[in-house]
């Protein structure tokens, strides 16, 4: 037997020699993510069940892909405490051929991350990162949201100290290009986060970031405010008209902008526990932020464009976001459950008159059950209930003729309200079959899914559509009143 085994060994292909591997430079690796779907919609929708992820990401997101490359400049090797370095680049976007309106246009893609990391340089367990600095504690998988995230907009330098029990990151840089694009002005950003693991079952973390856009006289893209602009006039687009109705003169007499500075801040928190009983893990995330003010808008007066600087009109916006996700093993290898809750409270101290995404509250809960018929064939069922309330009056249309009832039940052509109710309530239910070659798990991918979804909402046609909404006599298409929406989906999702 031994000789037979020996000859078999000699005959077999020697794939790699037994010589120890040497440290490599230039070893490359690509990871990524993709989702693509076809969702035929005979009710005139755009292939999404509802408007956004508040009802759960499933059937409410479009196609998307991300590619991240990593190249080892100096490879890490097990058992050695030596300097190492790697370069990372990430491309991502929603342009996918045949699956969305741009038909795969590369204009829908961008290089979202580019950075170099280097560890054990000067300090053990310490990693330097130069480039983009995006950092987040974790993800609410059911919603595809990251409430506890910092440096998403920032390019700069960070240092991260990481052991089994402690993870601390501190960084600083500039967020101007992400926030202002071609109207760039430096937005100094500094912050940090820390996470502590207390035993096997409990983690806690916190952090935050500060952004400061300095006053720069002479730079039209730096923060300014135009004096004596009323909020209501600005919303109506009547600031310049109002000025010249009260003041004679030419466009040169319109008040000059006054330079100022702008700032914003974000605090984040995290609590994680699990690993006992049926609780696989629970992630709780929170953030509170003051949003960065806008810079300027324009109005036209006598065929001339007038720039209004609005820092003072947009500097009192705040957000509170809380999210929790509980992952449960209900029946091991038979049934898993994930339960999510999301709450948001957005306020705008400058605006008390018009409905806006900056002045609302929302709350939602999503429950997903995944049963394993076999390790690779699963049944999925998900349900969500959500309530969104506008703080500044009616923002949603319950009926095709809601435009006639937008203020206190009466038509108001000068009003800011949009519909006939300040509350949108939505229920969604989804169910179907999932094929999962890599086995069980709610977040195991790849998955190939055949799903059916239904949405019931008090808002009329509460999904992306191309319906003609006008009620005038020249509308040849008529109006549609619909509160129940159905979608069939054939889709796949992969992390690789």
């Amino acid at each position, binding site marked *: *037997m*031994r000789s037979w*085994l*020996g000859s*078999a*060994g*000699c*005959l*077999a*292909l*020697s*794939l*790699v*020699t*037994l010589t*120890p*591997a040497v440290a490599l430079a230039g070893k490359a*690796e690509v*990871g990524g993510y993709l989702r693509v779907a076809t969702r035929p919609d005979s009710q005139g929708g755009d292939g999404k069940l509802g408007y956004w992820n508040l009802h759960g990401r499933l059937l409410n997101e479009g196609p998307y892909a*991300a590619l*991240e490359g*990593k190249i080892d400049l100096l490879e*890490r090797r*097990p*058992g*050695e*405490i030596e300097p190492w370095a790697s370069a990372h680049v*990430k491309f991502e976007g929603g342009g996918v051929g045949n699956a969305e309106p741009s038909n795969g246009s590369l204009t829908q893609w961008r290089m979202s991350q580019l950075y170099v990391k280097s*560890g054990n340089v000067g300090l*053990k*367990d310490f990693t330097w990162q130069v480039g983009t600095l995006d950092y987040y504690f*974790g*993800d609410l*998988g059911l919603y*595809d949201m990251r409430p506890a995230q910092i440096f998403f907009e920032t390019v700069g330098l960070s240092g991260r100290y990481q052991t*089994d029990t402690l*993870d601390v990151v501190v960084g600083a840089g500039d967020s101007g290009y992400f926030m202002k694009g071609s109207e760039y002005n430096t937005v100094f950003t500094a912050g940090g986060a820390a996470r502590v*693991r207390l035993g096997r079952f409990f*983690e806690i973390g916190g952090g935050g970031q500060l952004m400061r856009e300095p006053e720069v006289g002479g730079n039209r893209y730096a923060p300014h405010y135009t004096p004596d602009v009323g909020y209501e006039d600005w919303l109506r687009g009547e600031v310049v008209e109002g000025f010249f109705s009260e003041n004679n003169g030419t466009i040169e007499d319109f008040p000059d902008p006054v330079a100022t500075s702008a700032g914003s801040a974000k605090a984040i928190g995290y609590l*994680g526990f699990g*690993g006992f009983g049926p609780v696989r*893990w629970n992630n709780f995330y929170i953030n509170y932020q003051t949003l960065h003010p806008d810079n300027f808008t324009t109005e036209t007066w006598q065929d001339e464009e007038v720039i209004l600087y609005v820092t003072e009109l947009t500097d009192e916006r705040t957000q509170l976001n809380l999210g929790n996700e509980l*992952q449960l093993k209900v029946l091991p290898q038979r049934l898993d459950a994930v339960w999510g809750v999301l709450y948001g409270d957005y306020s705008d101290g400058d605006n008390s008159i018009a409905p806006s995404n900056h002045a609302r509250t929302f709350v939602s809960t999503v429950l997903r059950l995944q049963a394993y*018929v*076999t390790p*690779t*064939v699963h*049944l999925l069922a998900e349900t969500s209930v959500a309530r969104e309330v506008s703080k500044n009056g009616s923002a949603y249309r319950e009926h095709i003729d809601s435009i006639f009832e937008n203020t206190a039940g009466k038509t108001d052509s000068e009003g800011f309200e949009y519909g006939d109710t300040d509350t949108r309530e939505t229920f969604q*239910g989804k*169910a*179907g*079959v999932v*094929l999962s070659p890599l*086995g069980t798990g709610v*977040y195991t*991918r790849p998955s190939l899914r*055949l799903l*059916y979804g*239904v949405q019931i909402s008090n808002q009329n046609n509460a999904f992306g559509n191309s319906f003609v909404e006008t009620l005038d006599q020249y509308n040849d298409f008529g109006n549609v009143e619909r509160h129940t929406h159905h979608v069939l989906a054939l889709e796949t999702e992969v*992390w690789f």
Partner: protein
Amino acid sequence: MLISLMLTSMLTSTLSGCLKQAQIPQAAAPTPVAVGAVMEYLDAETVEAVPDALSSAVGDALTARNLPPTLVDAASWSDARNSQLRLQQLGEASDAELLLLLETHAEFFSQLSGQFRWTVSVRATVATSVDLEGAVVEEFEVPVFLFNYNEREREALEAATPTIERKVGGLVEQFLGL
């Protein structure tokens, strides 16, 4: 909704009913295998035994091929830092005719679209105890995604288990000409 659930349930039954397990080739006679499986860490000299889920999956893969496995405690191999020494120690620790050495480590790649991507690197070596020089080695990497931060190297290896099990089964079949 009810109709959809009924339809999907029928489809599921059909799909699961159609699946047939592939025939796994077996050795003509039971051939004992000594298995040494270690897990190493980056930036640390620690060497540990691989998670139970991985060692038992590899054991199942060998058993299914009529190769009864014996797991050798490899956690004390910190001093043996290369495959040759480890294979030698594995041979000395067992009377088995066939040796299987698994050397593994996991490296964090990045947070990618909401999940923590890790790369599990595996170096699998098969040899006969009488001819260590004739060993066959296969090196491969398995990308895995973990949803929670508290899941680290050990969980990464557990997540890579199905792929490692399949690769090791194939390597042993190749080595024995099954």
